[in-house]
């Protein structure tokens, strides 16, 4: 690969139109390894648009991070691990700064990058996906999975269910079914839910669905037979749409059907039409486009014709998720500049930036995101932050998601030991000595 070429393209794409005397030659390379093709493209596109648009906004409105422009080269992974590895190798040394952070956007790619990026000293920001036990910063110094993990989310769902049933003690004897994508991703919450089942006495029914999940008759027949009180879903891609439709067909009450945050976008509910009304899903940020930051994106990015997507689709759940991921990344870079007193930060500096990240209410308001998400503070040993999760509900008439609960605190007394156990097993298998925090 000709590196000069990559540089030229990056330059042309991002700063050529803005090339002024004040722009310094140093650039902050934050690549997008996105997927706009393949079976998961419908979910990948809005996320990728949100992610890129936010960087464009920072460049256009603020002239970059502290005056240093962001270069955002992209590489298509098609949600495929092997192509993801190729993308990583291609982008990691992009001059001048080298890649500052990777957002791998798939469980498989994240697992690939954890050892590689640690070796190359580039932080991996797997926001709300990837390896849950990477929350243990002592063992995974270069991996960040804030603001919350799948396990946090599982505990929140159980708390929500308890709230609806009248309290934790009412969980006893209740039946909860988990419909999950039969892969590492889908299996994530099982241990947490099992541990909680032991503690609170509910009965857990596990129903795996094989990729791609277009045929779920057998799964939903079992739900019809067992009639669980609640159904949780860890789904992805076409599996979500079919599951919601099947649930509607067997007339399962939608407000007792809760999806993970990757099963709660417009794409997932729209094909089911009116019947999806009332379906719930997890969320760590708000849907909709009525925050000041969205106005800025429309003004500085789309009005100038620099948006990646369609202006009408700003504010979709996954668009906002891409945006919030970019926001935290930008804040981490800013923080790295502050800590190290240089504007020419590298991957390892940004890691420090992530590790002492503190985006509080005040900062969110400055960014035009007041109430968009909750404050996040990362420490050396806790790479997953507060882990709070709310539930959002689909209104099929208005075709709108809206947050319907408070942000629940996760039950860390349940997930904590599990994280410790899993991360220590990893450390032992790979001869990693945990660092001191």
């Amino acid at each position, binding site marked *: 690969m000709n590196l000069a070429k990559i540089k030229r393209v990056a330059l042309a794409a991002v700063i050529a139109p803005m090339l002024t005397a004040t722009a310094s030659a140093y650039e902050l390379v934050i690549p997008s390894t996105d997927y*706009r*093709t*393949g*079976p998961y*493209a*419908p979910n990948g*596109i809005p996320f990728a648009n949100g992610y890129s648009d936010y960087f464009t906004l920072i460049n256009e409105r603020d002239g970059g991070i502290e005056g240093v422009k962001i270069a955002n080269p992209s590489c298509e992974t098609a949600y495929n691990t092997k192509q993801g590895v190729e993308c990583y190798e291609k982008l990691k040394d992009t001059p001048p700064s080298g890649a500052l952070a990777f957002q791998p956007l798939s469980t498989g790619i994240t697992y690939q990058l954890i050892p590689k990026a640690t070796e190359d000293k580039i932080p991996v920001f797997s926001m709300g996906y990837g390896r849950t036990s990477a929350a243990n910063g002592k063992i995974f110094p270069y991996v960040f999975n804030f603001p919350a993990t799948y396990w946090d989310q599982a505990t929140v769902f159980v708390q929500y269910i308890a709230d609806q049933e009248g309290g934790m003690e009412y969980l006893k004897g209740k039946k909860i079914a988990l419909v999950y994508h*039969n892969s590492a991703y889908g299996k994530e919450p099982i241990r947490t839910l099992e541990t909680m089942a032991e503690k609170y006495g509910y009965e857990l029914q*596990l*129903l*795996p*669905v*094989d990729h*791609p999940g*277009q*045929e779920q*008759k*057998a*799964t939903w*027949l*079992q739900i*019809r*037979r067992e009639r669980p009180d609640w159904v949780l879903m860890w789904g992805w*891609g*076409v599996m979500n*749409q*079919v599951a919601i*439709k099947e649930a*509607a*067909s*067997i*007339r399962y009450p939608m407000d007792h059907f809760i999806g993970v945050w990757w099963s709660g976008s417009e*794409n997932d509910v*729209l*094909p089911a*039409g009116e*019947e999806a009304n009332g379906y719930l899903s997890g969320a760590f940020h708000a849907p909709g486009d009525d925050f000041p930051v969205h106005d800025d994106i429309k003004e500085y990015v789309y009005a100038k014709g620099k948006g990646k997507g369609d202006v009408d689709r700003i504010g979709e759940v996954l668009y906002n998720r891409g945006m919030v991921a970019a926001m935290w990344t930008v804040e981490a870079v800013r923080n790295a500049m502050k800590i190290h007193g240089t504007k020419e930060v590298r991957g390892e500096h940004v890691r420090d930036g992530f590790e002492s990240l503190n985006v509080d209410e005040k900062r969110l308001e400055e960014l035009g995101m007041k109430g968009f998400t909750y404050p996040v503070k990362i420490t050396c040993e806790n790479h997953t932050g507060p882990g709070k999760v709310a539930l959002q509900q689909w209104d099929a008439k208005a075709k709108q998601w809206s947050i319907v609960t408070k942000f629940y605190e996760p039950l860390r007394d349940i997930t904590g030991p599990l994280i410790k156990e899993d991360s220590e097993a990893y450390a032992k298998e790979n001869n990693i000595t945990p660092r001191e925090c």
Partner: protein
Amino acid sequence: MLFFTETVISGLMAGVMYALVALGFVLIFKASGIFNFAQGVLALFAALALYDFMSPDGWAAALIGFPLPVPFAILATIGVMIALAWLIERLVLRHLVNQEGIILFMATIGLAYVLEGLGDILFGSDVKALDIGIPQGAHDYLFDQYGLYIEKLEMFAAATAAVLVTVLALFFQKTRTGRALRAVADDHQAALSVGISLRTIWVIVWSVAGIVALVAGIMWGSKSGVQFSLSLIALKALPVLILGGFTSVPGAIVGGLIIGVGEKVAEVYVGPYVGGAIENWFAYMLALVFLLFRPQGLFGEKIIERV
């Protein structure tokens, strides 16, 4: 007992859905000996085109100013599929006459790639909710009166499949073209020597397979929304095909029903004991067991070998 009935009925219905995909394979294999890997992508392409003609942002709307109503959109899609069949014959099949099965199989994979890319470029890769007015959800009367759950979409699919198979059977048995098709299926050279044009026949067969793909695309697309994953339904048709035989239209239907019922019953009654999600491999194991007794599939033509 009621639940068992329900499982079996659901299995039958799912089987019909598989059979719809398998039918397309059978048609092409029968007439040209090609194992058409692109059948799934054809279904996706057809569904994408249909959605596009009906959508206000589609090509049809851009061209004539308003989106096509459902019947016209279907007709237009059929037109597209016929044009596609013609192109495929013209650009690919014509040059591959008399090649081995595996080479032709590979060619259809190349074709699948081309259509996949083309579909994405022309129609975009979002999930599209396809609604051509097919009823959906559980059948109300049966559900409320007897507590029996049958999906309306699938009843509709079953009826469509019945009509489709009848029409195909009539077409094959009663029309001149149909007889020519059967002649080609029996023996290419003999058919050629009595004056049947192989090229025309291939265009016709691929057009018919394209229309069957459209039906499959509509049914599956109404269920899950039209998106890339639709092309993966081809995998669901493989065990059906193998069980029913590559060359038999009734085989595709019966095979579909057996696979559908078999895998649903296995998943619901055996699955929970071994951890679930056994549907996929169970379908193949079932087909395998049948094959051990009838190596040419249930309805396949007996293989006669000469040395």
